[in-house]
């Protein structure tokens, strides 16, 4: 008796194997790499059942985010550093229904947080590191930590060095929103406007 064929789905094996052979830079590969290090299939390391509850405001603000909804002007780039970061945090809440925001420096030290669980800081740092690729700018990553609760991690190059922004939002941010958030944080952290 054939020791293999009757036990395996040959077509399935060949399909899985073919996907593994595709090179990342292979033009024939599916263009699913929207974010560095992770693609659309990535929904996180933990299942929803074991996800930690996201602290912060009640669930209702999480309902506000709608992709494509127009974004108001980024926060004003004047005033003391922490004040500007607080403005930035408020703006994130208004525009993206962020239930919590924190910012880490390049060493992983927390430079701003508004009460989110410290485990998120560690997670964000790991995700930011995981998304690094040699020779490429670091992209954003997101992690599903519960039903309609996403930890969005966005490394941002600023005048203060690379900062890692972590935000708890109800849905992963589309690329144009990520770009807007990056620009807003970079402006808020700019010493020229302090």
């Amino acid at each position, binding site marked *: 008796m054939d020791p293999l064929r009757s036990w395996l789905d040959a077509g399935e094996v060949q399909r899985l194997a073919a996907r593994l*052979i595709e090179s990342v830079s292979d033009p024939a590969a599916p263009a699913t790499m929207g974010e560095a290090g992770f693609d659309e299939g990535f929904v996180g390391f933990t299942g929803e059942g074991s996800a930690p509850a996201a602290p912060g405001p009640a669930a209702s603000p999480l309902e506000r985010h709608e992709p494509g909804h127009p974004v108001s002007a980024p926060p004003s780039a004047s005033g003391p550093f922490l004040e500007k970061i607080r403005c930035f945090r408020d703006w994130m809440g208004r525009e993206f229904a962020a239930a919590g925001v924190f910012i880490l420096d390049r060493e992983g030290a927390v430079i701003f947080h508004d009460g989110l669980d410290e485990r998120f800081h560690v997670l964000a740092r790991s995700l930011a590191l995981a998304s690094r690729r040699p020779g490429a700018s670091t992209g954003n990553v997101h992690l599903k930590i519960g039903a309609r609760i996403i930890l969005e991690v966005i490394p941002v190059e600023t005048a203060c060095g690379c900062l890692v922004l972590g935000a708890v939002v109800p849905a992963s941010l589309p690329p144009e929103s990520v770009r807007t958030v990056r620009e807003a944080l970079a402006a808020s952290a700019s010493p020229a406007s302090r």
Partner: protein
Amino acid sequence: MINLAVSSQKGGVGKTTVSINLAHAFARAGVRTLLVDTDPQGSVGLSLTRQSRLLSGFYDFLQDPGIPLDRLIVPTRMETLALVASGQASDYEAGGGMGAHLARVRAFLRGAAARGFDICIIDTAAGLFGATGDVIASSDAIMIPQQAEPLGIRSVPKLLEGLNRLRIMNPRLTVLGVCLTMVQHELAESAQAAAALRQLLPAEMLFQTQVPRDPLFVRASARGLPVGALEGGAGVQAVFDSLRAEIEVKLQPGASSRANAG
């Protein structure tokens, strides 16, 4: 530095044997090689050093990344080969899901690269989860030893599914392919299983080189040596020299694309 994970879904397929002897083959070729044992069972250390139960190692670093890497790297009689044992922090094996230690695994590998190694060969525990998942998600390439027997090969679909999931986390991971181990040409079931797998998988997903089942491996393990260092081990060493050459070709830029085009 190239980080090469030697991993499999199933246990007992020869990961440690392949890792040790492949590391020896690279080192013999003048490649500065670091062999890292990330299997909490500590099989590499138990195979090569009498002091393995005393050595700090990989899991100690994960527990305390403040430990200087130089304290973990054990030199060998070959100038180009060093190893890191799995270490004493055995409780670690029970803790942490996948992704929990990614940053520390990467810090470990960056530290190894900074010490001038050309290749880091990482022997992992069976399965593609937990710390092994973090190692694979931090590696440049993976090779999969697979015992040439029907039961082992039936686990291949699960292996491929797991690798596809890990490749979502680490899209730059190059899957070098499956290396058949413990091949017994004189045993019909083993030969048939090997032949069937060759028919099933694309050619570029399988190494041409096969590792035979050979009593020399047991003898080498008993003496704490790579098989190539044994008297009479030259024949088996040639197998690993061949495997090394295949890996070097597969790691060349564009190798996968060329294989697809061909």
